[in-house]
Protein backbone atom coordinates (compact mmCIF):
# COMPACT_ATOMS: atom_id res chain seq x y z
CA UNK A 1 0.00 0.00 0.00
CA UNK A 2 1.35 3.39 -0.91
CA UNK A 3 0.93 6.78 0.73
CA UNK A 4 0.32 8.76 -2.43
CA UNK A 5 -2.04 11.21 -0.78
CA UNK A 6 0.95 12.88 0.86
CA UNK A 7 2.88 15.38 -1.19
CA UNK A 8 5.29 16.10 1.67
CA UNK A 9 6.97 13.59 4.04
CA UNK A 10 4.11 12.33 6.28
CA UNK A 11 6.28 12.43 9.41
CA UNK A 12 6.71 16.18 8.93
CA UNK A 13 2.98 16.82 8.61
CA UNK A 14 0.76 17.60 11.62
CA UNK A 15 -2.06 15.06 12.27
CA UNK A 16 -4.78 17.49 11.15
CA UNK A 17 -3.06 17.97 7.78
CA UNK A 18 -2.69 14.21 7.31
CA UNK A 19 -6.40 13.77 8.00
CA UNK A 20 -7.20 16.59 5.58
CA UNK A 21 -5.04 14.93 2.90
CA UNK A 22 -6.73 11.55 3.45
CA UNK A 23 -10.15 13.06 2.95
CA UNK A 24 -8.96 14.95 -0.14
CA UNK A 25 -7.76 11.62 -1.55
CA UNK A 26 -11.07 10.01 -0.64
CA UNK A 27 -12.97 12.86 -2.33
CA UNK A 28 -10.96 12.28 -5.51
CA UNK A 29 -11.68 8.54 -5.44
CA UNK A 30 -15.39 9.08 -4.99
CA UNK A 31 -15.46 11.53 -7.91
CA UNK A 32 -13.60 9.00 -10.08
CA UNK A 33 -16.07 6.27 -9.14
CA UNK A 34 -19.02 8.52 -10.02
CA UNK A 35 -17.46 9.14 -13.44
CA UNK A 36 -16.78 5.44 -14.00
CA UNK A 37 -20.36 4.45 -13.14
CA UNK A 38 -21.63 7.18 -15.47
CA UNK A 39 -19.63 5.64 -18.34
CA UNK A 40 -20.62 2.07 -17.49
CA UNK A 41 -24.30 2.97 -17.33
CA UNK A 42 -24.03 4.81 -20.66
CA UNK A 43 -22.86 1.66 -22.49
CA UNK A 44 -24.81 -1.00 -20.56
CA UNK A 45 -27.93 -2.48 -22.20
CA UNK A 46 -29.09 -4.84 -19.44
CA UNK A 47 -31.70 -2.85 -17.48
CA UNK A 48 -31.16 -4.87 -14.31
CA UNK A 49 -27.42 -4.18 -14.41
CA UNK A 50 -28.16 -0.50 -14.99
CA UNK A 51 -30.40 -0.44 -11.92
CA UNK A 52 -27.66 -2.00 -9.78
CA UNK A 53 -25.06 0.47 -11.04
CA UNK A 54 -27.38 3.44 -10.52
CA UNK A 55 -27.82 2.33 -6.92
CA UNK A 56 -24.04 1.99 -6.52
CA UNK A 57 -23.49 5.40 -8.05
CA UNK A 58 -25.95 6.83 -5.55
CA UNK A 59 -23.69 5.53 -2.77
CA UNK A 60 -20.76 7.35 -4.35
CA UNK A 61 -22.80 10.57 -4.51
CA UNK A 62 -23.33 10.22 -0.76
CA UNK A 63 -19.68 9.44 -0.04
CA UNK A 64 -18.48 12.36 -2.15
CA UNK A 65 -20.89 14.73 -0.39
CA UNK A 66 -19.79 13.53 3.06
CA UNK A 67 -16.10 13.93 2.18
CA UNK A 68 -16.76 17.40 0.81
CA UNK A 69 -18.73 18.50 3.87
CA UNK A 70 -15.94 17.27 6.16
CA UNK A 71 -13.32 19.19 4.22
CA UNK A 72 -15.43 22.35 4.11
CA UNK A 73 -15.89 22.19 7.89
CA UNK A 74 -12.13 22.05 8.35
CA UNK A 75 -11.32 24.78 5.81
CA UNK A 76 -13.20 28.02 6.55
CA UNK A 77 -12.00 29.83 3.42
CA UNK A 78 -12.97 26.90 1.18
CA UNK A 79 -16.35 26.77 2.91
CA UNK A 80 -16.92 30.49 2.37
CA UNK A 81 -16.14 30.23 -1.34
CA UNK A 82 -18.25 27.09 -1.68
CA UNK A 83 -21.21 28.84 -0.08
CA UNK A 84 -21.01 31.44 -2.81
CA UNK A 85 -20.94 28.83 -5.59
CA UNK A 86 -22.89 25.73 -4.57
CA UNK A 87 -26.67 25.65 -5.06
CA UNK A 88 -26.63 29.20 -6.39
CA UNK A 89 -28.47 30.27 -9.54
CA UNK A 90 -26.82 32.14 -12.40
CA UNK A 91 -23.45 31.95 -14.09
CA UNK A 92 -21.17 29.48 -12.30
CA UNK A 93 -17.91 31.19 -13.26
CA UNK A 94 -19.27 34.57 -12.22
CA UNK A 95 -20.42 33.22 -8.88
CA UNK A 96 -17.01 31.64 -8.36
CA UNK A 97 -15.11 34.82 -9.08
CA UNK A 98 -17.39 36.82 -6.78
CA UNK A 99 -17.13 34.28 -3.96
CA UNK A 100 -13.34 34.22 -4.21
CA UNK A 101 -13.14 38.00 -4.19
CA UNK A 102 -15.50 38.29 -1.20
CA UNK A 103 -13.52 35.72 0.76
CA UNK A 104 -10.09 37.21 0.23
CA UNK A 105 -10.92 40.87 -0.42
CA UNK A 106 -8.68 43.19 1.54
CA UNK A 107 -7.18 40.36 3.55
CA UNK A 108 -3.53 41.06 2.77
CA UNK A 109 -1.45 39.17 5.32
CA UNK A 110 -4.66 38.11 7.02
CA UNK A 111 -5.32 35.61 4.28
CA UNK A 112 -2.23 33.56 5.15
CA UNK A 113 -2.86 29.84 5.09
CA UNK A 114 -6.14 30.21 3.22
CA UNK A 115 -8.01 31.25 6.38
CA UNK A 116 -10.64 33.96 6.39
CA UNK A 117 -9.34 37.34 7.47
CA UNK A 118 -7.94 37.21 10.98
CA UNK A 119 -9.25 33.78 11.93
CA UNK A 120 -6.85 31.54 13.82
CA UNK A 121 -8.53 28.58 12.13
CA UNK A 122 -8.82 26.46 15.28
CA UNK A 123 -12.31 25.03 14.80
CA UNK A 124 -13.16 21.62 16.22
CA UNK A 125 -10.56 19.85 18.33
CA UNK A 126 -12.60 16.67 18.76
CA UNK A 127 -10.19 13.83 18.24
CA UNK A 128 -7.20 15.86 19.44
CA UNK A 129 -5.13 13.73 21.81
CA UNK A 130 -5.19 16.01 24.87
Amino acid sequence: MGFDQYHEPPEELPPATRTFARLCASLTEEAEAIGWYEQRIAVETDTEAIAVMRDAQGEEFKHFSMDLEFLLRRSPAWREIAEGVLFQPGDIVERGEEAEAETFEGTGAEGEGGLPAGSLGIGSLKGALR
Partner: protein
Amino acid sequence: MNHLLRSLAPISDSTWKELDDEARERLAPALAARKLIDFSGPHGWEYSATNLGRAVALKSAPCEGVTGAQRRVLPLVEVRANFELAQSELRDIDRGADDADLEPLDKAAHQIAVAENKAVFHGWKGVMEGIADASPHKGITLGNKPDAYRRPVAAAVERLLQSGISGPYGLALGGEEYQRVVEGAEHGGYPLLEHLRKIIDGPIVWAPGVGGAIVVSLRGGDFAFESGQDLSIGYEGHDSQTVRLYVEESFSFHVATPEAAVPLA
Protein backbone atom coordinates in the same frame (compact mmCIF):
# COMPACT_ATOMS: atom_id res chain seq x y z
CA MET B 1 -10.74 44.77 5.37
CA ASN B 2 -13.18 43.31 7.88
CA HIS B 3 -14.23 44.41 11.37
CA LEU B 4 -10.99 43.12 12.92
CA LEU B 5 -9.20 46.07 11.25
CA ARG B 6 -5.91 44.17 11.19
CA SER B 7 -4.52 46.05 8.22
CA LEU B 8 -4.74 49.32 10.19
CA ALA B 9 -2.37 48.03 12.88
CA PRO B 10 1.33 49.02 12.79
CA ILE B 11 2.22 45.35 12.55
CA SER B 12 4.10 43.69 9.68
CA ASP B 13 2.79 40.57 7.91
CA SER B 14 5.49 38.37 9.45
CA THR B 15 4.73 39.65 12.95
CA TRP B 16 1.01 39.07 12.48
CA LYS B 17 1.92 35.47 11.64
CA GLU B 18 4.03 35.24 14.83
CA LEU B 19 1.13 36.55 16.92
CA ASP B 20 -1.37 34.20 15.31
CA ASP B 21 0.95 31.20 15.79
CA GLU B 22 1.55 32.12 19.43
CA ALA B 23 -2.19 32.47 20.06
CA ARG B 24 -2.89 29.10 18.44
CA GLU B 25 -0.24 27.41 20.58
CA ARG B 26 -1.74 28.86 23.74
CA LEU B 27 -5.37 28.26 22.85
CA ALA B 28 -5.37 24.71 21.51
CA PRO B 29 -4.33 22.92 24.72
CA ALA B 30 -6.82 24.85 26.85
CA LEU B 31 -9.94 24.67 24.66
CA ALA B 32 -11.36 21.62 26.40
CA ALA B 33 -14.97 21.95 25.26
CA ARG B 34 -13.99 21.70 21.59
CA LYS B 35 -12.30 18.36 22.30
CA LEU B 36 -15.45 16.80 23.70
CA ILE B 37 -18.55 18.31 22.10
CA ASP B 38 -19.94 18.87 18.60
CA PHE B 39 -18.63 21.99 16.87
CA SER B 40 -20.28 23.58 13.86
CA GLY B 41 -19.14 26.56 11.84
CA PRO B 42 -17.54 28.99 11.73
CA HIS B 43 -20.48 30.77 10.13
CA GLY B 44 -18.96 34.26 10.10
CA TRP B 45 -19.16 37.44 12.16
CA GLU B 46 -22.53 38.35 10.65
CA TYR B 47 -24.12 35.13 11.92
CA SER B 48 -26.32 36.08 14.87
CA ALA B 49 -28.49 33.22 16.07
CA THR B 50 -28.84 29.45 16.26
CA ASN B 51 -32.06 27.81 15.15
CA LEU B 52 -33.69 25.87 17.99
CA GLY B 53 -36.54 24.52 15.89
CA ARG B 54 -39.10 25.87 18.33
CA ALA B 55 -41.80 28.50 18.24
CA VAL B 56 -43.96 30.24 20.83
CA ALA B 57 -47.63 30.93 20.11
CA LEU B 58 -48.46 34.64 20.04
CA LYS B 59 -51.47 35.91 21.93
CA SER B 60 -52.32 38.56 19.37
CA ALA B 61 -52.74 38.42 15.59
CA PRO B 62 -52.70 41.05 12.82
CA CYS B 63 -56.34 40.35 12.03
CA GLU B 64 -59.19 37.98 12.79
CA GLY B 65 -59.08 34.43 11.47
CA VAL B 66 -55.32 33.86 11.79
CA THR B 67 -52.96 32.82 14.54
CA GLY B 68 -49.32 33.67 14.95
CA ALA B 69 -46.20 32.08 16.40
CA GLN B 70 -42.75 33.47 16.90
CA ARG B 71 -39.62 31.41 16.30
CA ARG B 72 -37.26 30.91 19.22
CA VAL B 73 -33.60 31.28 18.43
CA LEU B 74 -30.45 31.24 20.53
CA PRO B 75 -28.49 34.48 20.00
CA LEU B 76 -24.72 34.16 19.68
CA VAL B 77 -22.56 35.80 22.32
CA GLU B 78 -19.41 37.75 21.60
CA VAL B 79 -16.43 37.17 23.88
CA ARG B 80 -13.37 39.38 23.80
CA ALA B 81 -10.11 39.49 25.74
CA ASN B 82 -8.13 42.72 25.33
CA PHE B 83 -4.37 42.94 25.58
CA GLU B 84 -1.53 45.34 24.81
CA LEU B 85 1.86 44.67 23.29
CA ALA B 86 4.87 46.96 23.38
CA GLN B 87 5.77 48.45 20.00
CA SER B 88 9.41 47.71 20.80
CA GLU B 89 8.68 43.99 21.17
CA LEU B 90 6.88 43.94 17.82
CA ARG B 91 9.85 45.62 16.15
CA ASP B 92 12.15 43.03 17.73
CA ILE B 93 10.05 40.25 16.17
CA ASP B 94 10.58 41.96 12.81
CA ARG B 95 14.32 41.79 13.49
CA GLY B 96 14.06 38.07 14.08
CA ALA B 97 13.88 37.95 17.87
CA ASP B 98 12.56 34.59 19.06
CA ASP B 99 12.11 35.60 22.71
CA ALA B 100 9.77 38.59 22.41
CA ASP B 101 7.57 39.26 25.42
CA LEU B 102 4.14 38.08 24.30
CA GLU B 103 2.87 37.35 27.79
CA PRO B 104 -0.12 39.72 27.47
CA LEU B 105 -1.22 37.76 24.39
CA ASP B 106 -0.69 34.46 26.19
CA LYS B 107 -2.76 35.68 29.11
CA ALA B 108 -5.59 36.91 26.88
CA ALA B 109 -5.62 33.61 24.99
CA HIS B 110 -5.82 31.68 28.24
CA GLN B 111 -8.59 33.93 29.55
CA ILE B 112 -10.78 33.47 26.50
CA ALA B 113 -10.22 29.70 26.58
CA VAL B 114 -11.26 29.68 30.23
CA ALA B 115 -14.32 31.76 29.36
CA GLU B 116 -15.33 29.31 26.64
CA ASN B 117 -14.84 26.32 28.94
CA LYS B 118 -16.78 27.93 31.78
CA ALA B 119 -19.66 28.96 29.54
CA VAL B 120 -19.97 25.48 28.03
CA PHE B 121 -19.44 23.37 31.14
CA HIS B 122 -20.89 25.61 33.88
CA GLY B 123 -23.05 28.07 31.96
CA TRP B 124 -23.20 31.84 31.76
CA LYS B 125 -25.72 33.32 34.15
CA GLY B 126 -28.70 34.69 32.27
CA VAL B 127 -27.14 33.88 28.91
CA MET B 128 -26.71 30.14 28.42
CA GLU B 129 -27.06 26.91 30.36
CA GLY B 130 -23.94 24.79 30.81
CA ILE B 131 -23.50 21.05 30.69
CA ALA B 132 -23.11 20.64 34.47
CA ASP B 133 -26.12 22.87 35.24
CA ALA B 134 -28.36 21.00 32.84
CA SER B 135 -27.35 17.51 33.95
CA PRO B 136 -29.92 15.65 36.04
CA HIS B 137 -27.12 13.46 37.42
CA LYS B 138 -26.05 15.20 40.58
CA GLY B 139 -24.50 14.06 43.81
CA ILE B 140 -21.35 12.19 42.82
CA THR B 141 -18.41 13.60 44.74
CA LEU B 142 -14.93 13.60 43.27
CA GLY B 143 -13.10 14.63 46.43
CA ASN B 144 -9.56 15.93 46.55
CA LYS B 145 -7.59 12.70 46.78
CA PRO B 146 -6.62 11.59 43.28
CA ASP B 147 -6.28 7.93 44.29
CA ALA B 148 -10.00 7.98 45.02
CA TYR B 149 -10.99 9.38 41.60
CA ARG B 150 -11.43 5.96 40.01
CA ARG B 151 -14.61 5.10 41.90
CA PRO B 152 -16.62 8.30 41.18
CA VAL B 153 -15.58 8.29 37.51
CA ALA B 154 -16.72 4.65 37.21
CA ALA B 155 -19.96 5.60 38.99
CA ALA B 156 -20.49 8.42 36.48
CA VAL B 157 -20.03 6.02 33.57
CA GLU B 158 -22.49 3.61 35.14
CA ARG B 159 -24.98 6.45 35.62
CA LEU B 160 -24.72 7.29 31.92
CA LEU B 161 -25.15 3.65 30.89
CA GLN B 162 -28.22 3.34 33.11
CA SER B 163 -29.68 6.37 31.34
CA GLY B 164 -29.14 4.75 27.97
CA ILE B 165 -26.29 7.09 27.03
CA SER B 166 -23.71 5.16 25.07
CA GLY B 167 -19.98 5.84 24.96
CA PRO B 168 -17.21 6.40 24.38
CA TYR B 169 -16.94 9.00 27.09
CA GLY B 170 -14.60 11.90 27.71
CA LEU B 171 -13.44 13.32 31.03
CA ALA B 172 -12.91 17.07 31.48
CA LEU B 173 -10.74 17.76 34.51
CA GLY B 174 -10.35 21.20 36.07
CA GLY B 175 -6.82 22.57 36.38
CA GLU B 176 -6.15 21.32 39.92
CA GLU B 177 -7.79 17.96 39.33
CA TYR B 178 -5.82 17.41 36.12
CA GLN B 179 -2.56 18.12 37.89
CA ARG B 180 -3.45 15.70 40.69
CA VAL B 181 -4.25 12.96 38.18
CA VAL B 182 -1.10 13.48 36.16
CA GLU B 183 1.01 13.38 39.29
CA GLY B 184 -0.95 10.60 40.91
CA ALA B 185 0.01 6.95 40.97
CA GLU B 186 -2.19 4.31 42.48
CA HIS B 187 -0.99 1.42 44.60
CA GLY B 188 1.57 -0.48 42.61
CA GLY B 189 2.47 2.57 40.58
CA TYR B 190 -0.05 2.14 37.76
CA PRO B 191 -0.59 5.66 36.42
CA LEU B 192 -3.99 6.98 37.41
CA LEU B 193 -4.32 8.75 34.07
CA GLU B 194 -4.18 5.43 32.21
CA HIS B 195 -6.56 3.79 34.64
CA LEU B 196 -9.17 6.52 34.20
CA ARG B 197 -8.72 6.39 30.44
CA LYS B 198 -9.57 2.69 30.47
CA ILE B 199 -12.71 3.34 32.53
CA ILE B 200 -14.11 5.99 30.21
CA ASP B 201 -12.74 4.49 26.98
CA GLY B 202 -11.97 8.00 25.71
CA PRO B 203 -9.85 11.11 26.18
CA ILE B 204 -9.03 12.96 29.38
CA VAL B 205 -8.69 16.67 28.77
CA TRP B 206 -7.26 19.54 30.76
CA ALA B 207 -10.11 21.99 31.24
CA PRO B 208 -9.01 25.22 32.90
CA GLY B 209 -12.05 27.00 34.28
CA VAL B 210 -13.90 23.80 35.11
CA GLY B 211 -14.60 23.16 38.76
CA GLY B 212 -14.11 19.47 39.58
CA ALA B 213 -14.66 17.14 36.66
CA ILE B 214 -17.34 16.26 34.12
CA VAL B 215 -17.85 12.98 32.29
CA VAL B 216 -19.56 13.48 28.91
CA SER B 217 -20.65 11.13 26.16
CA LEU B 218 -18.75 11.56 22.90
CA ARG B 219 -21.38 9.80 20.77
CA GLY B 220 -22.43 13.16 19.27
CA GLY B 221 -25.72 15.02 19.00
CA ASP B 222 -25.95 15.81 22.73
CA PHE B 223 -24.16 19.17 23.00
CA ALA B 224 -23.97 21.80 20.28
CA PHE B 225 -21.36 24.54 20.03
CA GLU B 226 -22.05 26.83 17.10
CA SER B 227 -19.27 29.17 16.06
CA GLY B 228 -19.98 32.48 14.36
CA GLN B 229 -16.55 34.03 14.10
CA ASP B 230 -13.94 31.56 15.29
CA LEU B 231 -11.18 32.81 17.57
CA SER B 232 -9.40 35.72 15.88
CA ILE B 233 -7.04 38.52 16.79
CA GLY B 234 -8.23 42.04 16.03
CA TYR B 235 -6.84 45.56 16.28
CA GLU B 236 -8.19 48.19 18.68
CA GLY B 237 -5.71 51.08 18.43
CA HIS B 238 -2.15 52.17 19.18
CA ASP B 239 0.07 54.96 20.45
CA SER B 240 3.82 55.46 20.20
CA GLN B 241 4.53 52.87 22.89
CA THR B 242 1.89 50.16 22.66
CA VAL B 243 -0.54 48.43 20.31
CA ARG B 244 -3.94 47.49 21.69
CA LEU B 245 -5.27 44.19 20.33
CA TYR B 246 -7.85 41.61 21.33
CA VAL B 247 -8.75 37.95 20.94
CA GLU B 248 -12.39 37.51 20.04
CA GLU B 249 -14.98 34.96 19.05
CA SER B 250 -18.75 34.64 18.77
CA PHE B 251 -20.63 31.45 19.58
CA SER B 252 -23.74 29.84 20.98
CA PHE B 253 -24.04 26.68 23.00
CA HIS B 254 -26.97 24.55 24.00
CA VAL B 255 -27.55 21.20 25.59
CA ALA B 256 -29.76 18.83 23.60
CA THR B 257 -29.48 15.84 25.95
CA PRO B 258 -28.98 16.89 29.59
CA GLU B 259 -28.62 13.23 30.64
CA ALA B 260 -25.48 12.80 28.51
CA ALA B 261 -23.10 14.25 31.12
CA VAL B 262 -22.32 13.71 34.79
CA PRO B 263 -20.65 16.46 36.82
CA LEU B 264 -18.33 15.40 39.64
CA ALA B 265 -18.07 18.09 42.28
